[in-house]
């Protein structure tokens, strides 16, 4: 674990410089251990690091670093509940305009892409970027597809996507460069929800093809 200042009000706690389930588990437990503490404004977990933003009028870098070291060792004991969330998906057609391209890139039939994508078990590494975007680990290697050379101006909400070796879901309509293979009718973000996001880091995710999908 390395800790360094990111700004005069933030520390970056890094467990690794590569993506690994072990580092991500430590990210998850440290995030849980620091949540809600006085003076901690925001926690930004990612693949292998946590950015801790604090109120510099209440806490100093040294105090936050001590807090992180104390909590990081205690947090290893934490055993958060494991949830499996099933995400229904309509694959292909207008819902997944890049399904054929992903199939071509993988030298597979579209049906085989759907089968592979929906049989894998994914883990939510973290939720970030913009408003509840889940970064999923566990995409079958054969499905890894480079991002679009030029991002779409508008990706519909609920689009199920592949970006390189990562899988994700666009919670809101937004610009985006990932390959769209399907779409879910589930709302990933609800401002009035408690919590507002359907998915949390550490959740297991499985995609379930919806009946009657049309290509």
């Amino acid at each position, binding site marked *: 674990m390395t800790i360094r200042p990111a700004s005069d009000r933030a520390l970056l706690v890094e467990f690794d410089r590569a993506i690994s389930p072990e580092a991500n588990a430590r990210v998850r437990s440290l995030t849980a251990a620091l949540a809600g503490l006085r003076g901690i404004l925001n926690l930004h977990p990612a693949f292998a690091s946590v950015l801790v933003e604090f109120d510099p009028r209440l806490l100093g870098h040294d105090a936050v670093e001590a807090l992180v070291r104390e909590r990081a060792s205690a947090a290893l004991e934490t055993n958060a509940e494991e949830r499996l969330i099933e995400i229904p998906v309509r694959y292909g057609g207008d819902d997944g305009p890049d399904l054929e391209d992903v199939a071509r890139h993988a030298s597979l039939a579209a049906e085989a892409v759907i089968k592979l994508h929906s049989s894998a078990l994914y883990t939510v590494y973290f939720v970030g970027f*913009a408003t509840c975007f889940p970064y999923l680990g566990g995409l079958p290697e054969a499905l890894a597809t480079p991002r679009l050379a030029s991002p779409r101006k508008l990706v519909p909400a609920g689009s199920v996507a592949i970006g390189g070796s990562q899988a994700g879901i666009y919670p809101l309509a937004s610009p985006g460069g990932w390959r769209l293979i399907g779409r879910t009718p589930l709302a990933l973000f609800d401002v009035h929800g408690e919590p507002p996001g359907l998915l949390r880091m550490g959740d297991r995710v499985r995609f379930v093809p919806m009946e009657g999908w049309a290509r």
Partner: protein
Amino acid sequence: MNQVRVIAPGLESSIQDLGRFGWAHFGVSAAGAADALALRAGNLLVGNAENAAGLEMTLMGVELEFESAAVIALTGSDFGSGLPLWTPIEVPAGDRVRCAATRGGARCYLSVRGGIEAPKIMGSASAHLTTGVGGGRLRKGDVLAIGDAAIRRPRKAARGFPYWNPATTLRVTPGPQAEWFGEEIYRSAYTVSEESSRMGLRLRGQTLTGAGGHMISEGVSLGAVQAPPDGQPIILFVDHQTTGGYPKPANVISADFWRLGQMRPRDEIRFECVTIDQALRFLQEQEEWLYSL
């Protein structure tokens, strides 16, 4: 209930308080006033708690009609209203307040005694303009309710923030990938691009060559100077994304966040590196001024 009617909405006006904290792990950024120092000062001047919701105006201001008497303060940049800044003003019932185009920096705040009453979404009334969380831009005909959340008497007129000078130098501390860039960002001036928004201030100038390294996405903080592959820096601002994969040579200090809120397209800026201890001293001075109001 006391109300204010929006006669003209300005260019990009929205309701803001000090932001929506504690949701970054869901990818929701804080939003909040772009020049929080001006909003806090305005609130203190009219006798509100500093976190009360006020009206943020950008480049071109609003015209409002007050249906009942109110006490307001205008803070930040002069938007040509003809009213004095940084001072409580009594507005009689039926009066209009007309703000126009800025004569200085990018933003002006209108605080009203009692606060603007707006629903708190995830703990804040701030509008996050790209997602619509907490609301959007003000529109013609909107009616704003004035709350009754004042906590003390209005203050006397303040002199503006003593360091007020929206131009030229942004003080930074080294960012997480500072060593990739060496002294690059300190060598030349950058111009604020027209494509800037509350999400990020896009700069144009000398290309940063340290931008080519590979890293995995990590959390990003307010004021982070990030260098995408084209080497043209982007300063992450109040509506910024919560994580990102671009390296960051520097981070604007907290005491200069208000300057970011006042920067306009075509402004020219330079970066100046300070230590974290210096940065915290500047912040301390600013807070002392604020609480002297």
